């Protein structure tokens, strides 16, 4: 078994999320915060402001006039869109490279992360959790951050993991835990702690495969789990771990989701896919 400390030390090799992204996340969740707070926060970060204006003025948004300021951007595109762009911009760098171990190509983990985040956000809006949509979007985006580091340990132990998954009925994350001593969601939660994420975000990252039975009652985690399942079923960013994760029908039952609802989510994701993929190239 690998020394868990060696894995955790790998966190220092990640590029830290800019503080402005985590601060915006906190502000967006706070019902008492005003739009001007978010505008000020972004405006005081020249690097984020420059990136944001460049993205907003791209052909993707097709705006009729030039966006000259953060305030302009928020007025023209809406606060939600701006918060998402800042979060995407702040997290992209770690996901872009080709991680070892999982057999993912360049950009595939990022592709999966962004699609999962969008699916999770739409689920939040449609299932009574609109007030938590930024948290759920961020959790969808960052749920697999642990894979960026875990990949090199998976690469080293892949044959053993593969035997457990294909011959012993283990899920991939159960096999990671058995062979390496930690799975990618636990490592993701450690990254969240080190980067001072909020407790709710860390909880969702840790439980996004719902190994802990009690997490299956947590609505925010359930939506991120479901978004992940949908992206897996559609083959977005699946790799050597494939669909080797556990399905918990009771989670869908508790959310009053029937087969037809799941099919609708898959359809909407398929339709939205191209638009989201174009956005990936901008950030």
């Amino acid at each position: 078994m690998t020394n868990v400390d060696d894995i955790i030390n790998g966190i220092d090799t990640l590029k830290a999320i800019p503080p402005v992204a985590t601060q915006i996340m906190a502000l967006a969740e706070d019902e008492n915060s005003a739009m001007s707070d978010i505008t000020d926060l972004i405006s005081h970060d020249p690097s984020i402001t420059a990136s944001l204006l460049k993205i907003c003025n791209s052909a993707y948004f097709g705006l009729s006039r030039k966006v000259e300021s953060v305030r302009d951007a928020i007025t023209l595109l809406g606060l939600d869109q701006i918060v998402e762009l800042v979060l995407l911009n702040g997290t992209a760098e770690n996901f872009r490279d080709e991680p070892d171990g999982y057999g993912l190509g360049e950009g595939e983990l990022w592709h999966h992360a962004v699609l999962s985040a969008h699916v999770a956000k739409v689920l939040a809006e449609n299932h009574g959790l609109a007030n938590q949509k930024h948290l759920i979007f961020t959790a969808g985006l960052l749920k697999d951050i642990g894979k960026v580091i875990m990949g090199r340990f998976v690469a080293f132990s892949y044959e053993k993991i593969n035997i457990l998954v294909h011959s012993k009925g283990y899920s991939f994350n159960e096999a990671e835990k058995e062979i390496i001593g930690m799975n990618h969601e636990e490592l993701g939660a450690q990254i969240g702690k080190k980067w001072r994420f909020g407790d709710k975000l860390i909880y969702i990252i840790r439980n996004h495969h719902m190994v802990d039975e009690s997490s299956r009652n947590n609505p925010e985690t359930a939506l991120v789990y479901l978004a992940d399942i949908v992206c897996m079923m559609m083959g977005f960013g699946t790799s050597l771990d494939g669909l080797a994760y556990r399905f918990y029908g009771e989670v869908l039952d508790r959310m009053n989701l029937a087969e037809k609802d799941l099919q609708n989510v898959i359809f909407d994701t398929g339709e939205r896919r191209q638009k989201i993929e174009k956005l990936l190239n901008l950030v």
Partner: protein
Amino acid sequence: MLSFVLPESLAMLSEKAGRQPYMFADTGLPALLEALLDIGAKTENIKVVIAGGAQIIDQTAEFNIGLKNYEAVTAFFMNNHLSIDHEDIGGISRRTLCLDIGSGCNFIQSQGQGAVHV
């Protein structure tokens, strides 16, 4: 080649289904066959290759879209008197299919395995 994601358009609002017929087995497969026949394909020369239908572990029957997609595709070809020449179905792996238009050569690659020519 058709890559569809759901078995039945009837499960969807008709407005949605009409917008994206190729996302469903029951509307995408007839459209593909019709397009092939329109450009002169002969049914006796058609070689059918299917791949996919992967499932998440413990995916219950109601939500098992991969299995339902497989059932839909086999029913379609059976109803149209076309036999399936090669299939790579189920399991937990994503597949990639390639069709070389020039040579008509296909291959299927399951994640983590080599390409299989069919």
